């Protein structure tokens, strides 16, 4: 249901503003609304001004903004180190924290930059090492490596290798040796060996065709290949050790200071949010005024708290919600016990307006009934009930899966109930196995009675919707619109009764007077709504006919179940028959959950709610502290 809200005004001396905002933040029950104050100013022609911070407050805000930015950067640089929390109260040590944070930020930035360079260098060395390690066995194939110039190159694919061999052979007149292999990470590399006399020509040729030569630090390039590998390995180990040292340094810094800075960051953030909240306050020369919304039940406790904390200096006053405020009142929905899980269905719609209705209780009452009427099979109901119990037990209370389980459970109970009324247990299996007979009627055969039943349900549902719509109009002090709704209700009722008296003549029910009644009401509708009146009437009749889907989808479900049983019986083999029937029943059950859900929801969203629900409400979003 929609929680009753209160429009409140909080007034106090300017010096108590921040502390008042802090109290409101801590309680998390108040939503400021500066637009309300603008109305006060216009109405009274008073001298209310938006709050302007004085020099000291501006300096403090600037200080906290700087500090917050610095701490955030520092926390980004420090690695996570456990879940310790600091009990430190940041305010008394704020100046020390300011100084320390500068030093620690420099330290963390230096360490991070060095670590980044070190990792890049280690990555490059690792890459070189893997190349030269892969090339090392190829050297054994060379006749005398000492008189040769050696090149290592990376190769894209075998085509490029082939082209390269051809080119180098031309450039060096065949005085060149090319051999290729694959590194541990899958890259293809080649070793090129040639006489020193043609080395420059070959280097130029490689450059011309843009084949990159494996680069090495200068001091390593002069070494023979086996020594290169050893030197690369030693250098890589040294870099890795350096990286570990830097990581340890950052970990140490983080372990010691991160909990303190996290605590400080939260505190500063809350302090800054108080400054941001001052935008909602207006001031006179000496006082501040904040207006906003809160749940009516919370007004007295908050008034008491403010009275106690500020010794009567800060007052809270509740104002009457005016007609023009109704669209502005934020909406908070809260449903007890049985109704609460059904919020997963009402959340699919936008929020209702404050003066409208919470659709959740209505969904909780009617959705499972319509679901059960459509599916209506004791066997399917039992399976769904078991699935619902599993979901509700397996998942924690309040989770979506648990709520879904509870909604499904109620729907399954109605499915079971209607299954007994229709005499269905996996279609006609109940009749064949246990001699089960319908308590009410067999909807597989009695199509017309089922259609009449569905239409009657639709008529009741729609008339209830129109009645609720009339009540909503009365609550909004619009008696004319309420009367139009009631005239519509009477017209629909008279038309349906006239149709019933024509189809099933009764001595006490005469068609003529009923149609005369419709004739009297029609001009009223046209006078009130213009041509839209009759159109709305037609739409309403269409809405009622739409409930025939309860019969139509139900009939398809029962026929599919019967077909499953017949096919299973036709197979000839018991096991295969059970398997065939089981698969078809499983498919029917899947459809049987999906179709009744969608169609029951549609009957609510389109047909029922359109008669009274006014959507587009503002969500109640109170100030609150950031969860730690």
């Amino acid at each position: 249901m929609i929680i009753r809200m209160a429009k409140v005004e909080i007034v106090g001396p300017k010096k108590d503003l921040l502390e008042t905002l802090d109290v409101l933040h801590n309680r998390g029950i108040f939503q400021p609304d500066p637009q309300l104050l603008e109305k006060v100013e216009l109405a009274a022609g008073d001298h209310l001004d938006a709050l302007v911070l004085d020099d000291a407050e501006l300096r403090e805000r600037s200080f906290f903004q700087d500090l917050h930015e610095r701490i955030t950067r520092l926390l980004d640089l420090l690695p996570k180190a456990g879940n310790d929390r600091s009990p430190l109260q940041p305010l008394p040590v704020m100046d020390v924290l300011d100084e320390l944070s500068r030093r620690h930020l420099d330290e963390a930035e230096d360490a991070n930059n060095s670590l980044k360079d070190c990792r890049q260098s280690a990555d490059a060395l690792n890459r070189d090492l893997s190349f030269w390690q892969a090339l090392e066995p190829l050297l054994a194939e060379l006749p005398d490596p000492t008189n040769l110039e050696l090149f290592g190159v990376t190769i894209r694919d075998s085509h490029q290798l082939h082209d390269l061999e051809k080119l180098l052979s031309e450039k060096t007149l065949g005085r060149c040796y090319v051999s290729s292999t694959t590194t541990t990470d899958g890259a293809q590399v080649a070793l090129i060996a040639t006489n020193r006399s043609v080395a420059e020509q070959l280097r130029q040729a490689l450059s011309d065709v843009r084949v990159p030569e494996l680069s090495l630090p200068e001091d390593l390039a002069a070494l023979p290949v086996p020594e290169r590998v050893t030197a690369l390995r030693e250098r890589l180990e040294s870099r890795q050790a350096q990286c570990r040292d830097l990581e340890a340094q950052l970990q140490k810094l983080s372990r010691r200071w991160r909990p303190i800075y996290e605590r400080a960051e939260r505190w500063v953030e809350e302090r800054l949010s108080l400054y941001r909240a001052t935008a909602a306050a207006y001031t006179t020369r000496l006082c501040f005024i904040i207006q906003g919304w809160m749940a009516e039940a919370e007004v007295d406790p908050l008034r008491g708290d403010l009275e106690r904390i500020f010794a009567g200096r800060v007052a809270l006053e509740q104002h009457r919600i005016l007609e023009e405020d109704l669209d502005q009142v934020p909406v908070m929905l809260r449903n007890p016990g049985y109704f609460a899980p059904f919020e997963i269905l009402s959340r699919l719609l936008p929020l209702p307006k404050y003066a409208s209705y919470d659709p959740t209780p209505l969904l909780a009452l009617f959705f499972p009934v319509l679901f059960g009427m459509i599916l209506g099979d004791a066997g399917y109901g039992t399976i769904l009930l078991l699935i619902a119990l599993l979901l509700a037990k397996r998942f924690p209370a309040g989770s979506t899966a648990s709520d879904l389980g509870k909604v499904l459970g109620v729907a399954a109970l109605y499915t079971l109930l209607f299954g007994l009324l229709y005499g269905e247990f996996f279609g006609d299996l109940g009749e064949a196995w246990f001699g089960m007979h319908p308590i009410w009627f067999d909807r597989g055969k009695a199509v017309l009675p089922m259609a009449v039943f569905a239409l009657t349900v639709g008529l009741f549902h729609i008339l209830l919707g129109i009645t609720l719509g009339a009540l909503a109009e009365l609550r909004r002090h619009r008696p004319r619109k309420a009367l139009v709704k009631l005239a519509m209700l009477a017209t629909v009722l008279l038309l349906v009764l006239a149709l019933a008296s024509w189809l099933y003549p009764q001595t006490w029910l005469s068609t003529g007077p009923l149609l005369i009644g419709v004739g009297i009401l029609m001009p009223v509708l046209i006078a009130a709504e213009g041509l839209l009146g009759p159109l709305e009437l037609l739409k309403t009749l269409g809405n009622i006919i739409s409930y025939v889907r309860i019969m139509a989808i139900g009939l398809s479900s029962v026929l599919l179940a019967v077909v499953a049983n017949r096919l299973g019986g036709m197979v000839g083999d018991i096991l295969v028959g059970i398997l065939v029937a089981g698969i078809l029943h499983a498919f029917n059950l899947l459809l049987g959950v999906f179709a009744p859900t969608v169609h029951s929801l549609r009957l609510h969203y389109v047909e029922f709610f359109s008669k009274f629900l006014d959507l587009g409400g503002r969500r109640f979003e109170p100030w609150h502290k950031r969860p730690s």
Partner: protein
Amino acid sequence: MEKVWIAFAAALAVGLPAIATAWAQSRIGAAGAGTLAEKPELTGVIIILVAIPETMVILGFVVAAMILLML
């Protein structure tokens, strides 16, 4: 022979609206899926929009049932 025509009329009464509903739902469904990718909060509205054309086939079914039961 008359029974054949009755059955054929009933089939047309439910078949044609079914095709029309399917076409309408395919268009609305595709547009709705695109909308939901950007605004998941419109799920309820999209369900409503997709379900609206189904009234056609439901009414077709009613007419078909009337043809079969009343003739």
